[in-house]
């Protein structure tokens, strides 16, 4: 039920931001936000590609999680251990481990969920002998999606931990 009474609807572009879609305001047209290019902007592997390089080390990795879960899936354990072996052998190497969630729910709760996911990787790295000083971790919660929109596909790509070498 939407008896929209448009009280004020103008499109003001007051400077550099170009609101190219002014003429289509109020329509349901497709948006320009890419659902595929964001991952490469962050240096993150799109889902699927990672399966071929899981055991490569040193190699940036992305590990995916089930809804509301923060347990590292068994298929990723060998990959984390491969990175750990490299890190132990190369004490000057450093890693950033970043946890992410899908868009649903509360932002700050998702920050906590994203951190639990990051720690599921960090803790396995540490158990495998990597020094704490070699690892930094952060949760981005739902604030840094690589896929936009409310689709199961997008959600699945965003429930993710990114392991990124800062120095090798």
């Amino acid at each position: 039920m939407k008896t929209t009474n448009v009280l004020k609807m103008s499109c003001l572009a007051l400077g550099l931001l170009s609101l190219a879609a002014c003429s289509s305001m109020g329509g349901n047209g497709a948006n320009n936000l890419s659902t595929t290019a964001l991952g490469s902007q962050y240096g993150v592997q799109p889902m699927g590609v990672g399966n071929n390089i899981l055991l490569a080390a040193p190699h940036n990795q992305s590990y995916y999680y089930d809804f509301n879960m923060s347990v590292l899936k068994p298929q990723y354990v060998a990959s984390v251990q491969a990175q750990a072996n490299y890190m132990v052998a190369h004490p000057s190497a450093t890693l950033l481990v970043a946890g992410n969630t899908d868009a649903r729910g509360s932002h700050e709760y998702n920050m906590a969920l994203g951190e639990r996911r990051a720690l599921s990787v960090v803790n396995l790295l540490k158990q495998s002998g990597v020094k704490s000083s070699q690892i930094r971790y952060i949760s981005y919660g739902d604030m840094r999606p690589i896929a936009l929109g409310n689709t199961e596909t997008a959600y699945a790509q965003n429930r993710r931990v990114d392991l990124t070498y800062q120095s090798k």
Partner: protein
Amino acid sequence: MKKTLISFIGLILFSFNVANAELHLELNKGLRASIPIAIVPFANQQNNLSDPLNIASVVSNDLQNSGHFKVMPVSDMQQQPTQLSTVNFNYWQQSGYDYMVIGQVTPQGNGTDKVNFSLLNSVVGNNNAANQNNAVVLSDSFTVPQSQLRTAAHKISDIIYKNLTGIRGVFSTRIAYVLINRPNNKLPTYYLEVADADGYNPRALVQSNAPLMSPSWSPNGQEIAYVSLANQKASIYIVNVISGQQRLVSDFEGINGAPAWSPDGQQLAIVLSKTGQPKIYLYNLASGTLKQLTSGYSIDTEPDFSPDGQSIVFTSDRGGNPQIYQLNLATNQITRMTFDGDYNARPSYTYNGQNIVVLHRDSEGYNIAIQNVASGGLNVLTANGYDSTPSVAPNGQMIIYANNATVNGSLGLVSADGQVQLTFPVPAGSNLQVLEPAWSPFLG
């Protein structure tokens, strides 16, 4: 009664050299019994109805959007008096508008305008043709810079609203929110925006190439605490809304999040995970001391102080899924508050402390709900399915929230009884996304 109000609250916001899309309110649903009122175009302004500085237009929108008023369309006005002596009260009463507002805008030179207005009762006026002064409910005047006519209009709306509903208006308050610009093939830029409560006059207070989150207004409305994820770590900052100056509050390892001000403005409740679990701490802004309030193996986050400062509500998964708990600060006793559904988060008190507003998930998705603290009864207010971050207006009448149903998102307003709903749409097809709104306290 006449007075001159030389200056309104003039917040000087640091404006980065970027444009900001203004988000304008659309009324989607307004079912309340409402007060009929006609806002007649002011003298010297009749020909400028679409001008954002048109006082009658701004006041009409303010009152209509509150859900408490039925505002006469200006196109229906066969008469447009601007002086009491020329008002034909019979016409206005016959048209069904028990109340009307007339006024004049008079240039004073040196870039200022004098704004006079009167709220009239057309029923009284029609019954007292001999003495029309009896119809005057109130009159007031302000002298303002011409660029601030909109501010004067909101002030008029506040005065009328208070007189006719008995409730303090929020038309002169502000909202903060996060705006994300995602240009194609470039990294996003995040802005912490502050705008008038009706979406006008947005300014970017903070700009970052990393996510900004969780804006929280200080009780005096002069500062905003927020979370930055810049430099691959989480930090809490406080930015002064007037000067734009920033100070770092907290950047421990792990989460530094969910800042919430104590009612006296002297402490922040924050969330830190430096011990391994996200826990709620009290940070004393003057001394810098930290006091851990919660413990254990659970996620504890999203604190909000009760208006009396005696307790804190927060989200915790200590029972297996996220629910709302109340911490008594005197006794440290923790009590579960929500039992309806398996996901309740992001609690905030209404300003009278009688209700909490939460993000609630059920079979309809993630929606905004309000729960009576005493009875525990929970009422789901929205049905969008993708809502988050509810924030209550300082008069408790409206709740602003983010609706993430589309990629661009939008901000929504819903009245605390669910009867009135409005949206601030983001231009569809743009690269912008809006989220995380926070309503300011009363200003000035």
